[in-house]
């Protein structure tokens, strides 16, 4: 069987790409190291939020575009994705953060994104469990949450329905030129190999400037209505973009099931999956500082996952500057679910020679001198 494209990884990125390239009538092989599409890696471990992030114009453009694509996709069967259009409520603890909220609102509105300032009294009306003494917040009502493993599985199913996509469960162990070696001892070749397996790419392509950022999550039993929006502290941004060290930030979600999902933590260069109780406790303590009565809720499960981060916080989307035929869709840090659809669209447009909806230059791998120089 001759394939035009081989995709490494059937998480959200791999599934979105398989779906996008199948629509270009390409013959595609997807190689997944785990046992089912969407059931492994960061896709299975993350919070599945669909959020516009505005820390730099390129991030805003990508997340905005991708959130639009998600809303279109989710019109069909939102329940299957466990989609909740609960919005994001950015919480301001003090006047300084309130100023940041105002700035954020101006920027988002100027970019056509609905965002409303809430004063303190409106904040407590929106979320009665928040700790007293907060200054207010910013509500972005069109943000939402999906259950990423199902979304990835559904995208892969749709891709397979085209008849163009073969999914095999086999770990890729080596990439030599345009030949892939797998754990089952098979070799595959194709004109294009699209690497979309997150931190797994770091061992296949060691020259990539990727770093692991471990995170933890706790999920509670069902307490419907405890929180109604995704809640994030405005200080989250400092945590997400810290260049070193461990950090936690307040970030909870009301899940479709009525459970409360609690994040978030970041630890650089840790890629094991063991629970780190020190940082988990810090994360839970930070959560309780914003939602005091969360201390009374039963946690039924804790787990960890590994994000794949790039040096500038933007993903690597496009051809590898040195390795002919290798394309990349990695390095999405905490925005892999949000930006998967736009990532796939940009890559498919480039492949087909179409112009894309947004400028793809900021995400091209060749921006890293490291890569350009690698042999």
């Amino acid at each position, binding site marked *: 069987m001759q394939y035009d494209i081989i995709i490494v990884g059937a998480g959200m990125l791999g599934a979105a790409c398989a779906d996008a390239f199948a629509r270009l009538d390409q013959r595609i092989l997807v190689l997944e190291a*785990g*046992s*089912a599409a*969407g*059931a*492994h890696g960061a896709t*299975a471990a993350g919070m599945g939020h669909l959020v516009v992030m505005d820390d730099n114009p390129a991030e805003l453009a990508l997340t905005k575009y991708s959130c639009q694509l998600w809303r279109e996709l989710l019109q069909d069967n939102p329940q299957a994705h466990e989609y909740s259009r609960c919005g994001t409520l950015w919480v301001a603890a003090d006047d300084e953060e309130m100023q940041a909220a105002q700035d954020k609102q101006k920027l988002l509105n100027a970019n056509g994104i609905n965002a409303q300032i809430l004063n303190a009294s409106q904040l407590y009306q929106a979320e*009665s*469990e928040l700790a007293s003494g907060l200054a207010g917040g910013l509500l972005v009502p069109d943000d939402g949450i999906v259950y990423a*493993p*199902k979304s990835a*599985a559904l995208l892969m199913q749709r891709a397979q329905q085209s008849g163009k996509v073969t999914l095999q469960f086999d770990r890729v162990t080596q990439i030599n030129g345009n030949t892939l070696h797998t754990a089952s001892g098979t070799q595959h070749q194709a004109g294009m190999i699209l690497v979309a397996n997150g931190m797994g790419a770091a061992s296949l392509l060691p020259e990539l400037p990727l770093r692991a950022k471990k995170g933890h999550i*706790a999920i*509670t*039993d*069902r*307490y*419907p*209505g*405890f929180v109604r929006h995704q809640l994030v502290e405005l200080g989250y941004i400092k945590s997400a973009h810290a260049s070193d060290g461990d950090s936690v930030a307040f970030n909870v979600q009301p899940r479709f*099931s*009525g459970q409360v999902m*609690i994040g978030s933590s970041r630890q650089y260069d840790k890629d094991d999956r063991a*629970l780190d*109780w*020190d940082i*988990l*406790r810090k994360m*839970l*303590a930070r*959560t*309780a500082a914003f939602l*005091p*009565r*969360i*201390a*009374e*809720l*039963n*946690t*039924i*499960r*804790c*787990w960890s996952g590994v994000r794949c981060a790039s040096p500038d916080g933007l993903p690597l989307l496009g051809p590898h500057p040195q390795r002919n035929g290798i394309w990349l869709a990695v390095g999405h840090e905490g925005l892999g679910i949000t930006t998967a659809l736009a990532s796939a669209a940009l890559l498919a447009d480039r492949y087909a020679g179409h112009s894309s909806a947004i400028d793809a230059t900021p995400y091209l791998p060749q921006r890293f001198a490291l890569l350009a120089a690698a042999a």
Partner: protein
Amino acid sequence: MKTFTIRINGQSYPANDSQTVAAALAAHSGFYSRASVCGENRTPVCGMGICQECRVNINGAPHQLACQTLCQPDMAISNLQQATKFDPCTKTASEPAAIPVPIFDVIVIGAGPGGQSAARTAAAQGLKVALVDDNPLPGGQIWRAAVLQPETYPQAAASWQQVKGHSNVQYFAASKVVQVEDGSLLLQAASGKQRLGYQKLILATGARELLLPFPGWTLPGVTGLGGLQALVKGGMPIAGKRVVLAGSGPLLLAVAQTLRQQGANVLCMIEQTSLRHLLGFGLGLLHTPGKLRQAISLMRQLFGIAHYRNSHVLSANSGGTGSNPARLQSVTIQTPQGQQTLECDYLACGFGLLPNTRLAQALGCALHGDAVQVNHSQQSSQPNIWCIGEATGIGGVDKAIIEGEIAGLAVAGKDVSHLQGERARWQGFARRLQQAFALKPELKALAKPDTIVCRCEDVKLEQINTCNDWRSAKMLTRCGMGACQGQVCGGALQQIKGWQVDGLREPLGPTRVGSLLCHGSTTRFEI
């Protein structure tokens, strides 16, 4: 025994302090505890804090286990509905993040016969012992609530008297070990949390029932076999009720005896094992004369109750279309002679016992098969952790007691060779038990495609059949993502599909966020 009033769904009822909330629900309001994800009424099943079906609201706090909670004066209980909101009247005291950690020479987890034996033996050697159990009363399963009836259970009463007689044993009731770290254990109790430090551990975590899905198994009125016994011992009224018992092994007879003593109308016992295996097991009891006498006495007491062999339950049935809400009305069984349907009020059905090994696994102890691996001194693969009783292999109360004594001496560095003979005798009993009552393959194929397999999340077999392994079933169908943490459906799927059920992580049971976020302060103190 103190009597007082409690409120259930706003109505006042009498209760007493040795009665569980589950028993009070059964006595007064049709037993129903919660509404499931798809809207079915559920009632307690396992009776021992594992299946999570008995979750109710108590005093404004949702997700409280009715079977593990004793009634208290003025308690307000209500059913856990799907849309139950977190009660805004609940007060939260602010919790210290750092708590002092008392250090014991040895912590014994489990206050059943084995744990009590270990605790009093270790204490007699002069060690400082903590005895921890997640039930409100000591005794584990087989001696459940026995301390309330010392005349009926003299051995259990004497054992507990001995434990209490040692001032160097500190007993922590209603406390579940949920997390382990750096030589300390985090305990979750209804009232709060505790961290205990230790030099050595003795795990006496016992066993739970294997529950397998079959059509109708989620109907109110269907419980586990040991589950019904546990509920009745918790004060659930059973006098005059028609009960069908189904399953396997000596537990079937023991439960029949308990129920008869409480005035139940036990209609029949449905044993999946063949007569040949039963006779073989009976012959084997010659090795353990005490057990043989017990068996003969049991059989005499149960004379008159129909006993089917080579038989099993096919389905639990609710009434015709008029049944609102649905409740157990009858049971259809398969016998060598054909099928029969029996009308009844309760079906207690369990398929054998599984060692409780999650805590041992979290501590890094190796397993041998589905039990914790130990040497002849009951020492596990972790040098400072011993394990005894059912958790090392199902073998009953006598095995647990002798093994507890061995571990209690071993942790004090004492010689245990004089006890090896008796240990070997009960290990032999355990082997004969396993051989005689091995599960027939038919029992693994009872569920139909539309039978719920994961009770916490209401996931049906046909959904699970679309997946190839435990992990993908969990991620894609929600099977195993509920409050029981896959203990019920995981055990079932291991049998039905031969799946490896892995990915054990702490917390070992639902745990309040407030408990998890506290760490041991640097002040550790010897008690």
